């Protein structure tokens, strides 16, 4: 697939807040048809059930069965915890272990994707009772011109 940015409108800035997701489920998001998006930020709050294996948070950009880009968190999330994950541009990666569990990571720059490519979570060892409490995205959106 080749995108043609020269035919696109100038970007809109969009915010979408979502969640909670049903227990044991990952989130899956697809841009609207005939749009191209670039993430500006992604926030995920995730709570683990008090049992099972340690979880690993990761989000993916790619087709339904492809992982074109993997936003992998290098640290684990233990049982019975709520962690806040944030990805933004140009912020490096760091982790606050004190009192509250925030993890910050860097988004790739210039990675446009379009329908039907997805942004989704693929949490490692996700338990049936784990919950994604909320997830929020901000993105730049280009819309294909519509021929009337």
């Amino acid at each position, binding site marked *: 697939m080749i995108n043609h940015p020269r035919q696109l409108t100038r970007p809109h800035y*969009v915010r979408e807040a979502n969640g909670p997701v049903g227990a044991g489920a990952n989130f899956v998001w697809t841009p609207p048809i005939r749009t191209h998006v670039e993430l500006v*930020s992604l926030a995920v709050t995730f709570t683990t059930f008090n049992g099972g294996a340690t979880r690993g948070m990761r989000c993916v950009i790619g087709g339904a069965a492809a992982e074109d880009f993997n936003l992998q968190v290098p640290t684990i999330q233990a049982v019975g915890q709520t962690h806040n994950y944030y990805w*933004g*541009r*140009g912020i490096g990666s*760091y982790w*606050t272990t004190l009192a509250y569990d*925030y993890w910050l990571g860097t988004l790739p720059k210039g990675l446009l994707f379009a329908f039907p490519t997805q942004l989704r979570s693929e949490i490692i060892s996700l338990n049936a009772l784990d919950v994604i409490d*909320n997830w929020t995205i901000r993105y730049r*959106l280009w819309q294909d011109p519509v021929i009337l």
Partner: protein
Amino acid sequence: MIHHPRELDRPHLVREGFGALGAGADIAWTPDVRTHVELLSLRIAFTTDATVANRLMVPIIGPVGNDDFAFPCPVAQIATRSYEYYWGRDVGCFWTANFANYWEGPLPSGLLFSYPEQLRTGIVNIQAGDQITGYTIRYQLWQDPVAL
């Protein structure tokens, strides 16, 4: 919510400096109506009282009740200390422990927000006697066109 940058004028560069807040209070700053801002830098001076507890400085961008993006300092501030926190674009995380308590960290780039969204702090374990003794923001500001 969709912003339409193509309708915005060119950005203004704005600096705002604020004095001490009331004891125990967090920052809650909102852009003007019909404006969109992107932070270029943020400075916070924060003094803790004698209560023994680890504070964690957590700036947040988002609507009231939603933490769309948080960029905490990973280093705790203990009792009876005055710390200076600075955030800027493309700045790594580092800490000066030897001479004075400065911390520097990265701001996400490209993250526009607008009224009624806020820049605020959610300082973990803030005490009634703690005080933000001042903060300064520099930002780019776009103004929506006004129909006269």
